[in-house]
């Protein structure tokens, strides 16, 4: 009998809320967390980004531990994992439980201060979380640019199906920093306002920060009727350019095909990467069409939370799972008029819809692409 990897619990922390439910309510209300910020410490000129409220974060964290002893990144990740654990019936200290951290830059805001110590090493950051939660095993850390989140979930599914572990806590976190803002600025890839995925007037991405947690397990517990399982994920490489996607969507198409090859259900909804850069969205429209999925309802979450980089794959997967569980599809905030060359069935307004399965896709620097499925049992 095939081993099933089930979603036990999840959490999202972004500018729009500290729980999945808070975030979902904000999305349904059509709110965006992308605001104009004049924080001169982060950039020389005002910029649009989706920022987690630091004061609220510290207040929340101080109910868990002393904020003075943890970095902002660590507080964010710990709050998220903590919330997911509250609703999960798992033994976190068990030797068959593993933690996977997905992040592009970890505590990169400390680099500027010439910080000594190990905080700049991503494995050290994962260990801080391990120590806090008293996890048995050394965590894994995945850093694969914008596909990190999906890769972390994919790796978890593989390890669980192989029986190496029976429970996996995946957390994806990234914070906004001068480091990252300046870098994307140098690529002239930032939007002039809140980003507009797939839209004719889109002009770039909006950065966001946040943390997403997903707890997966092969253990049978008290399953609610609407429980969701994770399918197999795959990654590919365009082998074309290190910072721009392939114009033909070759790599993403391959990842989609692999994810769907042995998947028994037809896909009810696609959570696209939809960063709102001219090239990404165009490439995705091509890949989705070449895969024959152009009629499947598709959205991008980037208009709500911005692009949360290493957290995106987890945050957006969690909300896609919530969509499956609650029979709701979220509109693509920021989208008004189609601006890609191939037709897509873009979800414009949030709506009730009973869907059984979804496909989550992403692409990133380095020419990488990833795809994974989730389905209702």
């Amino acid at each position, binding site marked *: 009998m095939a081993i099933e990897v089930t979603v036990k619990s999840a959490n999202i922390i972004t500018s729009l809320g500290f729980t999945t439910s808070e975030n979902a309510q904000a999305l349904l209300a059509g709110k965006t967390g992308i605001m104009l910020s004049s924080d001169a410490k982060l950039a020389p000129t005002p910029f649009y980004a989706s920022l987690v409220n630091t004061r609220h974060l510290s207040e929340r964290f101080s109910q868990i531990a002393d904020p003075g002893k943890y970095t902002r990144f660590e507080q964010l990740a710990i709050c998220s994992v903590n919330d997911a654990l509250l609703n999960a019936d798992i033994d976190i200290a068990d030797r068959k439980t593993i933690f996977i951290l997905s992040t592009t830059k970890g505590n990169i805001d400390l680099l500027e201060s010439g910080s000594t110590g190990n905080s700049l090493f991503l494995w050290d950051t994962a260990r801080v979380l391990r120590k806090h939660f008293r996890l048995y095993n050394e965590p894994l850390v995945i850093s694969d640019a914008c596909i990190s989140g999906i890769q972390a979930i994919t790796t978890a599914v593989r390890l669980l199906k192989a029986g190496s572990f029976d429970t996996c806590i995946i957390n994806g976190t990234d914070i906004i920093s001068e480091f990252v803002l300046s870098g994307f600025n*140098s*690529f*002239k890839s930032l939007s002039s306002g809140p980003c507009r995925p797939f839209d004719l007037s889109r002009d770039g991405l909006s950065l966001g920060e946040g943390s997403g947690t997903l707890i997966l397990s092969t253990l049978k517990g008290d399953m609610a009727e609407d429980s969701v399982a994770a399918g197999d994920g795959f990654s590919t490489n365009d082998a074309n*350019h*290190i*910072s*721009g996607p392939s114009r033909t969507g070759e790599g993403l198409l391959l990842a989609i095909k692999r994810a769907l090859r042995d998947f028994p259900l037809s896909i009810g909804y696609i959570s696209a990467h939809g960063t709102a850069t001219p090239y990404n969205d165009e490439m995705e429209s091509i890949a989705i069409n070449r895969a024959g999925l152009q009629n499947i309802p598709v959205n991008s979450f980037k208009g709500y939370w911005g692009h949360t980089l290493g957290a995106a794959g987890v945050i957006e997967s969690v909300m896609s799972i919530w969509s499956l569980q609650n029979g709701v599809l979220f509109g693509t905030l920021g989208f008004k008029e189609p601006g890609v060359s191939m037709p897509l069935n873009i979800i414009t307004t949030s709506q009730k819809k009973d869907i059984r399965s979804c496909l989550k896709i992403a692409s990133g620097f380095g020419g990488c692409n990833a795809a994974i499925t989730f389905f209702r049992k």
Partner: protein
Amino acid sequence: MEQLVQKLKEEIITVLNLSEMKPENIDEKAPLFIDGLGLDSIDALELTVLLEKKYGLKINTPEEGKKVLYSVNSLAQFIRENNKG
């Protein structure tokens, strides 16, 4: 203009890490992108950084960028026109 063109060739080789090229290999009339040197999008962005850093000049639109960055000659002309060369 000759001096500026020569200097630009050297600067291009440096900022774009074209270590296996010499200035005399670069034809100042030839296109920098697609044909000619076959530079890519990152190279284009780096050249705009060069213009800003060394010559204090900003490129304001992608269309302007295409014209200015067409060749070494067009780069030199842009710099001269803005009295920076």
